[in-house]
């Protein structure tokens, strides 16, 4: 048996072979997911990643949440959220929050767009390897969907003390989290590396 891959979770040598549209492969021994083939994966990645980037811009350009109680009001933009932590002498937490909810997701989206465009047009670029390594390394550190849960919990906590108004940017960020997750899930690690290797050899 000439193996294509060793299962990343249990080291079993495996042959993946030909996959039809929508089929996926998993390790027969440990059940680890290996790869899924979709004919339209490139278009889906580009569409969702492009939409997500636009939504992220929108999420930063209007009111995110507003609060009013006893005639006083306060309003925040998304990018100001970690900024207040900085003012309270917690620059580390501020930077981490910015990275997890804005910077890392934006970097991943930009990289998967250029990566997918290059792979789709079959053009080899020397930075492809670096881009792919960064994307698959950073993937675990984007916490977009976790932040949405955080917003919901915060709303419940202050709803009894003050009136909260959800801004346009909140909805943009919620839609962004959906598109981001879809874009990431359409990018297949195994196939991406196979295609980079095929391009490098030509």
């Amino acid at each position, binding site marked *: *048996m000439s*193996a*294509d*891959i*060793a299962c*990343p*979770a*249990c*080291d*079993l*040598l495996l042959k993946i072979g030909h996959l039809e549209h929508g089929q996926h492969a998993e390790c027969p*021994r*440990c*059940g*680890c997911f290996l790869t899924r083939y979709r004919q339209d994966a490139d278009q889906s990645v580009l569409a969702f990643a492009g939409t997500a980037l636009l939504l992220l811009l929108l999420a930063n350009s209007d009111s995110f*949440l507003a*609060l009013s*109680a*006893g005639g*006083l*009001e*306060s309003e*925040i933009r998304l990018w100001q*959220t*970690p900024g*207040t*932590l900085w003012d*309270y002498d*917690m620059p*580390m*937490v*501020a930077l*981490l*929050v910015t990275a*997890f909810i804005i910077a890392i997701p934006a970097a991943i989206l930009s990289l998967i767009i250029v990566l997918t465009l290059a792979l789709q047009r079959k053009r080899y670029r020397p930075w492809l*390897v670096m881009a792919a*390594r960064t994307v*698959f*390394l950073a993937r*675990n*550190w984007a*916490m977009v969907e*976790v932040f949405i*849960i*955080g*917003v*919901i*919990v*915060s709303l*419940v*906590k*202050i709803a*009894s*003390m*003050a009136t*909260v108004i959800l801004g346009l940017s909140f909805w943009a960020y919620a839609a962004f989290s959906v598109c981001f997750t879809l874009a990431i899930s359409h990018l297949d*690690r195994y196939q991406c*590396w196979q295609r980079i*290797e095929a391009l*490098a050899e030509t």
Partner: protein
Amino acid sequence: MSSETAAAQNLASCHVCCKLAPARYARCPRCGAALHLRKPASLQRTLALLVTACILYIPANLYPIMYTDQLGTTEVSTIIGGVVLLIELGSVPVALVIFLFSVIVPSAKLMVLFYLVWTVENRSILNPRQRSRLYHITEFIGKWSMTDVFVVAILVALVHLGGLLVIRPGIAALSFAGLVIITMLAAESFDPRLLWDARDTRNRDN
């Protein structure tokens, strides 16, 4: 089913791109990452990070995560206090979510990773599939613990209404963020293939 592993054939599977290459190569021929049969010093790194996480666990739970100044009085809340407050407010489902992500998940993650390291140290051959699944769940659920840190970030930014109502962050926010990141790194440095190695070498020797 023949269960031949890459390591048994002296092939290393790149941990970045999954390329199979002869184990004598120093770097992966496809992506240039350092090539190893197993993640180097996986158990030592995981244990070191787990001990760090256990130390951070103490301030994260003892110190206040945020202060609420309402009309001249200051209310201090810890992580557990936040859960109790949510139950008092009548939002039991949200309280359960926070209890799950901030209390259960971090402690369960620490215990699971200690247990997995212990089974590898003892060359356990019991149920590698279940242990493997346990590892994947731990790895997947890790980042959800960050919820409480985001809650503090949002409340602190949003709630500053002059002398009426102000929310300030507490030092536990930093310790807790550190705890979550360190446990995520611990999960990443653990090599799940070690869970199968004891069984594979035993099968080969017989």
